[in-house]
């Protein structure tokens, strides 16, 4: 029984994608990104009883890019992530992961499996599992029933978990139930879980909310390390942090469900409309 896929090995996951069920198939290692973009959102509209949380939103993320998204409270940033991860079905519009994965037709676990990982705005971890188990659960492997039943942790995998534990500074806590962690610790744990998943696209919804300035800095360092290895989308309100990680990459400003401005951090910060609706004077 091989629990973990060897590089290059793939499972076919086409046939069940449209139905509401499928085995938890491991991701295809190669998302087809021949055109250089890993995520395309086109004309995405999400409407809740007439209220448009997203309004014809367009967004492209290229492979290896680190994109920051900012925007007023209620602009639709979280909703956008909901659409990408299959939590919310858009009312209209298309969303593609690479060339082949139509995200609007896939289930949450299938999307996760295909290589999109997400950190939620409110930290969500398995509260009754220990920190260690949280990481073990998130670890990249064949997530079907049988392999899970016969799974044995290898030394390599254990090392990986230990490394991550260190990274998120919860080494001493690995036997504690995650529910007993403080708010900020949960944030970290969730980032750790995300890393265990080894996704190609990371979605981080307000990763430094509730972190102290020092910790925010560390997170920025971490993201800078990951830059290039993964494609990353970060939503944040902390301008210092955004400036730090955006460097000279693109920053997108959402407002009322669509893109208000896009450009370098300096350009965006200077934008009158952005100042008016978001930054304030």
């Amino acid at each position, binding site marked *: 029984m091989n629990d973990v896929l060897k590089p290059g090995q793939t499972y076919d996951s086409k046939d069940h994608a449209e139905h509401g069920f499928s085995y*938890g198939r491991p991701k295809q290692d190669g998302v087809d990104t021949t055109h250089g973009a890993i995520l395309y959102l086109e004309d995405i509209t999400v409407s809740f009883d007439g209220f448009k949380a997203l309004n014809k939103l367009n967004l492209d993320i290229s492979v290896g890019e680190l994109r920051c998204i900012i925007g007023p409270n209620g602009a639709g940033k979280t909703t956008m992530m909901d659409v990408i991860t299959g939590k919310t079905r858009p009312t209209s519009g298309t969303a593609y992961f690479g060339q082949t994965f139509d995200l609007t037709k896939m289930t949450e676990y299938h999307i996760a499996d295909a290589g999109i990982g997400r950190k939620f705005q409110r930290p969500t971890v398995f509260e009754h*599992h220990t920190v260690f188990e949280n990481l073990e659960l998130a670890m990249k492997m064949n997530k079907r029933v049988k392999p899970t039943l016969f799974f044995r942790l290898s030394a390599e995998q254990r090392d990986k978990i230990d490394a991550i534990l260190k990274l998120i500074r919860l080494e001493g806590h690995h036997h504690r139930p995650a529910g007993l962690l403080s708010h900020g610790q949960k944030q970290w744990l969730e980032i750790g879980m995300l890393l265990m998943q080894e996704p190609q696209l990371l979605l981080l919804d307000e990763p430094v909310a509730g972190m102290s300035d020092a910790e925010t800095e560390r997170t920025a360092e971490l993201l800078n390390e990951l830059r290039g290895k993964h494609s990353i989308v970060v939503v944040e309100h902390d301008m210092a942090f955004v400036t730090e990680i955006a460097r000279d990459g693109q920053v997108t400003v959402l407002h009322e469900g669509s893109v208000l401005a896009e450009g370098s951090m300096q350009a965006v910060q200077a934008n009158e409309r952005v100042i008016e609706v978001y930054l304030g004077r």
Partner: protein
Amino acid sequence: MTSSFSSLFSRPAWAGILACAAVLALLPILNLSFPAGHALHVSGYTVALVGKFMCYAMAALALDLVWGYTGILSLGHGVFFALGGYAHGMYLMRAIGHDGVYQSNLPDFMVFLDWKSYPWYWSFTDHFGFAMLLVVLAPGLLAFAFGFFAFRSRIKGVYFSIITQAMTFAFMLLFFRNNTGFGGNNGFTDFKRILGFTITAPATKAVLYLITLAALLGALLLCRWIVTSKLGRVLQAVRDSESRLMFIGYNPLWFKLFVWTLSAVLCGIAGALYVPQVGIINPSEMSPGNSIEMVIWAAVGGRGTLLGPIIGAFSVNGLKSWFTAAFPDLWLYALGAIFILVTLFLPQGILGLVDRFRKSKETA
């Protein structure tokens, strides 16, 4: 493998389990080897009672697997128990042969409904092996089909509990109908023999008893192995936050379906062992109240511990048997009070009490 086998339980837990099993195994032997009146004699009534409790314990164990670990509260496990029982009962009915009231090769109730031959769904039930297959398949398939649709629709929490209750209630009404072909309200009773052995013979009873004990132990080990595997941790994650689990790439459907079906099958086996020992199976086993009682056994013993539900099934039923005879007019007060006191003062059940006791000793 052996090392992982022995690591299923802690050392003291193993000792306790094996000691209990040995004592239980001794009961029918004492019953057979010593004449009534002898100091070491154990009455047939006691053996029959303990045999019944072991079946209940197995049902409670099965329920704990889905409830305690996966957070799926079934208020309809009685239906699986009963289906296993009915499947075995069909064989036992056919084994009566011509010894029924009407000396027909049909069961009395069919003669009585003017049926001339067995309906199709009774085919092959005269073969013991096929009946045993049915014991597994009937509850298994029902659980699989029911679970598949329910879990696929992401029915959760009380909604799931209530539709399991609706399911068992519907089955009860269906089996109460005489036209359904399972003996209506009377169900199956008055069995004569099993595999050629007289069912009331003390030796047959002892063997049935020992098989039940073995099945219970086997089920315990199997469940324990499952919950300590990584799959067990996934199940608990399903219980705590199913949606989060999906975002890290698991499809909860198959995990839930796996334990749900397994649990139903274990429950069906318990029912199948119950029928020859108790001597009757009828639709009241599917009444919603019976399923709720199973939940109560698990809760009283300590949910999510596997051993707890077994202890719970023994203690609740033991008390009930004692109370109904000792205070026939007041027993419901006593039983009701116990349920209340257990929930208020032992939120982790009886096993929780043991834990607490051990902890307090450790710290002291």
